[in-house]
Structure formats: structure tokens, C-alpha cells
């Protein structure tokens, strides 16, 4: 991919996990992942019943949760060896996250919400090219005429499309989605999915998406049932 995170370069699979165990404190549920490998260009639908650990898996791979055992390697970096702030760097610079509940900032308009990773990063430089890319992304998600609108004046589907644009503006090496189309109608769902697939296709970034939607699942080349990971 040619990118580095604090001096590390990507080697091997983009995502590798082995002998991972994770349990929430005080909970009976335990997620186990014996072996998981995801490579460039992979489009993976993570499926399973509610409570099976789909979201937990995505959070572990994105460094939002720390496993109690095992190793996870993302874009060539061992997550175990990273501090909390290093993991944040990883997410901000290399990962794109589209979660169902990821909120937009109400006091920023569409364009500024999309540019948020740049405005909040001491490393990423917000220049004319980035602004142009952000505008193009907003155009692409069909909100070109609503650049200066605040989220409260957008529909649920429009807000989710802004969140997708925000997750892609840094040109991430991997895109994670946790039911990114869960609250959307069919038209908006297809629109959001189309954007994600197009990005993955154009850049080779693997797409790892948790979904309950059968129609959407069928569009993924690979399906991963979390119950079978152990």
C-alpha cells in the first residue's frame, strides 16, 4: 500500500488474527478466533446471530478492544505492541470505520464532518487536494448540493452517507463496517453499499462488514460466520 504507521510498513496479510480470546468483564460470552486472514481486495461479510460477537470481532480488529489472549496483526502492525494512542493513530490514518451508531458532529456542516479526521489529526495535512477529495466524495454520495448543511437537516440515509464519506476521506487501507446500512431503506442501503464496494474495488482495500441483511451478504465474495471462527 506504500503507507506507514509510525514507521511500520505492511508485510503479509492486511489482517491476521490467531488464537484470539476475548471476554467482557463479568460476562459469560467469550469470542474465540483460531485463525483469520484477510488480504487486499477481500470483501468479507461478517454474519451470525445477535450476540455471537460480530461487533466484538470488528472492534478487536480495529483496536477498539484488546484481546485477553492471542495476536492480531493489522496492516503489518501487531496491535498488542501498540499503545492506546498508537491504535488511535492506526485508526485515524489507516482504517475507515462506518458504524451504525457513529454520530456526526451536529455543529459541523457536511463538508467539515467529512474533513473531521484531518481537522482532528496533528499528522494529516488539510490542503487543497484533500478538500477537493472531500468535495468529490460528498458529490459521490449524492450530497453535493448539501455541503453546508448541518446533520440535523439531513435524513437518516443522508447522514449515513456523510459518515461513509468521512470514513473514506483518508483513503484507508482497510474499511470496517458494523451494520452500516442497518437503519436505511433499500435505496439508501444500495447506495451506501455501492460506495463502499466501489472504493474497495478501486483501491484494493479490503472491506469487512457486519450485516444481518441477506441481500447485502450475497454481494460479498466471502462470508465469515463468527460461530465458526473458534
Amino acid at each position: 500500500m506504500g503507507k506507514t504507521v509510525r514507521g511500520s510498513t505492511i508485510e503479509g496479510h492486511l489482517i491476521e488474527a490467531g488464537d484470539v480470546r476475548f471476554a467482557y468483564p463479568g460476562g459469560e460470552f467469550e469470542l474465540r478466533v483460531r485463525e483469520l486472514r484477510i488480504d487486499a481486495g477481500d470483501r468479507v461479510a461478517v454474519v451470525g446471530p445477535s450476540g455471537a460477537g460480530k461487533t466484538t470481532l470488528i472492534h478487536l480488529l480495529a483496536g477498539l478492544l484488546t484481546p485477553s489472549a492471542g495476536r492480531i496483526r493489522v496492516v503489518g502492525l501487531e496491535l498488542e505492541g501498540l499503545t492506546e494512542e498508537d491504535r488511535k493513530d492506526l485508526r485515524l490514518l489507516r482504517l475507515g470505520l462506518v458504524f451504525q451508531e457513529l454520530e456526526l458532529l451536529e455543529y459541523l456542516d457536511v463538508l467539515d464532518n467529512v474533513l473531521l479526521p484531518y481537522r482532528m489529526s496533528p499528522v494529516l495535512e488539510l490542503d487543497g487536494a484533500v478538500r477537493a477529495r472531500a468535495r468529490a466524495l460528498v458529490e459521490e454520495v449524492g450530497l453535493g448540493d448539501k455541503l453546508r448543511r448541518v446533520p440535523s437537516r439531513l435524513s437518516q440515509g443522508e447522514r449515513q452517507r456523510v459518515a461513509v464519506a468521512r470514513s473514506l476521506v483518508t483513503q484507508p487501507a482497510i474499511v470496517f463496517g458494523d451494520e452500516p446500512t442497518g437503519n436505511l431503506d433499500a435505496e439508501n442501503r444500495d447506495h451506501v453499499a455501492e460506495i463502499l464496494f466501489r472504493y474497495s474495488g478501486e483501491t484494493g482495500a479490503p472491506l469487512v462488514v457486519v450485516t444481518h441483511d441477506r441481500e447485502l451478504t450475497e454481494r460479498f465474495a466471502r462470508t465469515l460466520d463468527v460461530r465458526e471462527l473458534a
Partner: protein
Amino acid sequence: MRDVLYLAWRYLRYNRGKSAVLVGSITLILFLPAALQVLVGEAAELLTERADSTPLLVGAPGSPVDLTLASLYFTEPSLPPVPYREVEEIAGSGLGLAIPLHLRYSASGRRIVGTTPEYLEFRGLRVAEGRRFALLGEAVLGAEAARALGVGVGESIVSTPAGAFDVAGSFPLRMRVVGVLEPSRTPDDEAVFTDLKTSWVIAGIGHGHEEVAELEEDDEALLLREEGRAVASPALLPYTEITPENIATFHFHGDQAEFPVDAVVVVPHDLRSETMLRGRYAEGDAPVQIVVPRAVVDDLVDTMFSVRDAVLLVSLGLILATVATLALVFALSVRLRRQEIETMRKIGVPRGRLAAVLAVEVLGIVLAAIVIAGALTLAVGRFGGELLRIVAG
């Protein structure tokens, strides 16, 4: 840093109502003690300035503060008058200049100061238009009084009767305005100056009327005429305006030495004269008191400073309470923004960057409050004196 400022600005701007309330609250707790400090300083300066230029005051025994305030700031006199004899005695002693003040009456809310032309000289009051009062019934207006009343040279003003049941005979007297003074930025600007005798006429001690002896036999103003003596009836009314035609008929009944004055401004010739004058009235059973206005005002100012210090102490408590409340507001605000902060964490915003944005938001509010409070305090410093003069009337 530019992005941090930008994000903080956008947040404050979007939540402009909340931001304005916070800025307003902090501005108030900063401005009020500062303004109090400035205003008390200004008031102390104004008080001492006037007192400094008035060496001694003589008046009836009683509150030195009342005597000083009435004589220097023309407040309603609360002490009884002293006889004009005191003025004559001080002048006759050769120890200093004695300037009488008669302050009982007003014209359209402006104090009528019955005095002598020496008062204008003593205060350095210069005539901007017209001339000083010279004849009975003439008045000179302070600059602000002339402006407020809308009266100029050649026009007239009428004294306000002391009361509907004033049996002493305080008739409204129409006075001709013969001069307007230059502004002096002192209480003199607010006053109406007239000759002491004119104020005695207002008081009913002197009056003018038709010559009784020349009244026709059937004139209802004539009560009886016998053996070359004519007696006027109550129908004989005094003139309410002093004109060149009737000025000669004005006269005073009684001994002038007993006529009232409310205070005497005494300007001793030298320190020795001052000491002698003060010694003369120092005895406990003296019928009048002598006060040094500066000493009286210093006591007043000390009291003002004590009150100010007490208010500042209370303000300090209020500031601490407000700071605690604001801290709580900011903490609650952060809790309310938990979802937003969680989103930031998920997308990988560094903790320091997030803290910087939140800190700049708080700093922006505090800085805005400091700037506004500073500007307001400067304005109070600039216009505080004027404000105090207006408030003091």
C-alpha cells in the same frame, strides 16, 4: 492549531445561546468588582476634589456630613439655618472671607443657591454667556441647569414654593436669567445662583408691593386709613417678579443679622487665621459648628472603601461559587457530549487533540468574557465620573 481553533469556534457559534450565557456570567463576575473598584475610586476623587477646594464650613450644630454635603453638593439642607450675623462676624474678624449660602429653595428641581458674587469668584466659575447677578431678582444658571431647563439669558425661571401650606409666605418668584456659567464638571453646573437677598425674598422675608399710602380709598387692598397712617388688607399681594419698575418697593422686615443662611464657606487668609477660626468654634456650647470638609469627606471615603472592601469580599465568594458552577456546567457539557467524544475515540482522534479542542472552547469563553469585562471597565473608567455626576444629580 488553526483546526483546533476552527472546531472550537464552530462549536461555540453553533451553541451561541449557551456560549452567550456563559460569557455573560463570567463577564458579570469579572466586571462588577472591577467596576465597583473604579467607581469608588472615581467617587472618592470627586468628593475629595470638591472638599479640597473648600477650606472651612460654618453651619448649625449637628451632623458635619449633612452640612458638608449640603454646602458642597447642594443636597437638601437638613440642619437648621444659622443667623446672618455669623457671616458678618467672620467677615468682621478679618480672619478670612465669609461666603453665605442659602439653600432652602429650588427651581424646576435645581437647587437655588442664594449667595454673593464672591462665591463665583471663589469657585473660579466663569460666565459663558451674559453676566453675573447684580440686582435683586437676577439669576445665573450652571451650564447643566441651563441645558436641562432649556433656559438662556433674557429668559426667566420660577422658584418652586416650599409647600402648599407654607404660611411663612414662600411665594414663587420669577427670576430673570442674566448669565449662564461655563461647565465646571462640579455640582455648580446643576445649580441656579442668585443673590442672597433674592433667596430671602423667595423665603418671604423680603417682599415688594404697591405703596399702601397711595392706594385709592375704595381699593380692597386698603384695610384702613387714619391719622396719616394706612394699613393694608390681606388682599395686598406681594409682587411675584422683581422688575426695574417695582424693585424700589422691595424691602425686608426685621434685623438682617437674624436672617437665615444654611452655611458659610470660610476662606481663611492663612493657616494662623484658620487655626484661630477653628478654635473660636471649637467650644462644645458654641451656637454653630465649624468643619473641615476634607476631614469629613475623608471619613466618608474611608467608609466607602470599607463598604467596597466588604462588597469585594462578598464578590470573591460569588466568584468562587460561579467558577464552581461554571466548572460543573463544563463538566456536564462534556458528559452530554459523551457520544461525540466516543465517536472521536473510535475514529482515532488523539486524546490530546480532543482535550485541546475542549480547552480552547472554555478558553474562548473565558477570553471573550475578559475582553468584554475589560472594555466595560475601561468605559466605566472613562465615563464613570460623568455617570456619578448624573447619578448624584
